[in-house]
């Protein structure tokens, strides 16, 4: 039989389009990426979002302020506590309510615990994206300990809804301080294991160093915040620039790296876990006495005007923009979600890399899809 040999030279190779998602393990949710490929090289990425769009901003227009807090849990479910805090701080600012130091300190400790557990989950799924399945078990094992602390004090494990306008839903559990201190002691010993397992791995270095570089100018222009932006040297930590709660009374450093590649985004998050533990240790032993909530009016009405509150979630800057017309429900609420903005840079930094690198880059941006769609 005659054998047919078909030669396809590089010029004759055509671009073809494949669909990544919405059900793809490495997109961490219902994100659909339409990827144009030439061979294995990514030429263009078009994110299609909206699979989990619930219209939270529209819903907010017909409910009251204390009710909004429970919706914000469902945006970035890994930073649930910090999202709650953003709305509460905004309402308290509008009403000019003075909250006690006790509330501020407890909120800060809870925020940092939230940040650690979020980074732990990111670490295990990022390792798994790159083929290190062990990470997944290590990360989830340690995250469970924080969720147990949440459960004891807040009742909820992930969607805590612990904040309410004017303070907290309940006081902390009597064991809270002891358990947090135990956890810090434990995790300080465990965190170097994370480095041994993944950070020093040669295969991991090969797959992350120099991949998906984001320059400082682009990080600012695209508005990339959080650890992803700080890995490019963009000083965007709201905790430093516009301190809220108890962040103005503690010393901590803003994690900044300059390379802006996947590896530095990874290291930035590992460093943030260390820094969060430092913050908690400064506060946990001296939680001031006082009431855990300020008595608010049964129906909260914000004075007419516009209010903006920025907070630093585990993924970047969350902005809550409330326009009030004086009624019990807001006229318009806009959530400036960090993940929505961070997604917009994906095409820019992943272009020209291999499709396997796209998984690494997407993982290093740490996208949470319900926060993108809202």
């Amino acid at each position, binding site marked *: 039989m005659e054998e047919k040999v078909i030669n396809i030279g590089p010029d004759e190779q055509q671009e073809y389009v494949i669909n990544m998602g919405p059900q793809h393990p490495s997109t961490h949710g219902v994100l659909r990426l339409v990827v144009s490929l030439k061979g294995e090289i990514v030429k263009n990425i078009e994110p299609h*979002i*909206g699979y989990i*769009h619930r*219209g939270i*901003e*529209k*819903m907010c227009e*017909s409910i009251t302020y204390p009710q909004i807090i429970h919706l914000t849990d469902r945006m970035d479910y890994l930073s649930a506590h910090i999202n709650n805090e953003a709305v509460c701080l905004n309402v308290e600012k509008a009403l000019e309510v003075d909250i006690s130091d006790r509330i501020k300190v407890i909120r800060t400790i809870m925020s940092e615990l939230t940040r650690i557990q979020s980074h732990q989950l990111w670490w295990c799924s990022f390792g798994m994206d790159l083929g290190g399945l062990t990470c997944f078990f290590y990360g989830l094992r340690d995250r469970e300990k924080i969720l147990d602390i949440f459960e004891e004090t807040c009742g909820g494990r992930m969607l805590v809804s612990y904040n309410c306008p004017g303070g907290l839903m309940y006081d902390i559990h009597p064991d809270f301080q002891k358990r947090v201190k135990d956890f810090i002691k434990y995790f300080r010993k465990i965190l170097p294991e994370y480095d041994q397992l993944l950070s020093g791995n040669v295969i991991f270095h090969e797959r992350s160093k120099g991949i998906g570089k984001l320059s400082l100018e*682009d990080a*600012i*222009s*695209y*508005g990339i*915040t959080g650890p992803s932006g700080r890995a490019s040297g*963009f*000083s*965007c930590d709201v905790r430093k*620039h516009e301190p809220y709660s108890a962040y103005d009374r503690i010393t901590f450093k803003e994690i900044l790296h300059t390379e802006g590649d996947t590896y530095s985004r990874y290291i930035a998050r590992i460093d943030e876990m260390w820094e969060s533990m430092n913050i908690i240790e400064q506060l946990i032993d001296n939680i001031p006495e006082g009431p855990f909530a300020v008595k608010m009016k049964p129906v909260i009405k914000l004075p007419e*005007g*516009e*209010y*903006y509150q*920025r907070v630093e979630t585990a993924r970047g*800057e969350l*902005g809550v*923009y409330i*326009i009030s017309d004086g009624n019990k429900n807001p006229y*318009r609420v*806009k959530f*400036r979600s960090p993940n*929505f*903005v961070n*997604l*917009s840079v994906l095409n*820019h930094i992943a272009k020209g890399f291999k499709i396997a690198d796209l998984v690494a880059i997407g993982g290093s941006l740490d996208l949470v899809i319900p926060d993108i*769609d809202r």
Partner: protein
Amino acid sequence: MDKIQLGEFIKSINQDLEIREGKQYVEVTVPPSKLYSLAKELRDRKEAQFDFLYCLSGVDYGQDLGVVYHLRSTIFDHVIVIKTRTSDREHPQLDSVSDIWKTADFHEREAFDLLGIRFINHPDLRRLFLDNSWGYPLRKDYVDDINIVTK
């Protein structure tokens, strides 16, 4: 720059703009025709350098449709709020700022999707969350047929 200096700075760019000192930020209202040139000045002027557009929100004011830009300078850490509005509800059109701040690309697509504001010179203005059969849900006159959202 503090709030007073910012107000004077805006006046030095354009005398006619309406400047309001809000509780938090300085708010400037600009007609749509002058939006693009003001945005460019704000980013490029050496003493201002508003290089970080951290929030862009479309708002339905009832009569008008508008867009609110929250700008910050990463060098000086000052903040300004730019507001613009158009009374044309049928075909609302505003200039896109996505070539000045790249982050505006996605934000403007969101505003188009949920409020139906068209942005002139936007590189890729398609709907983002919803498909073409939907109306514009964040408008106040939106009628929800399925009746999920009730007041």
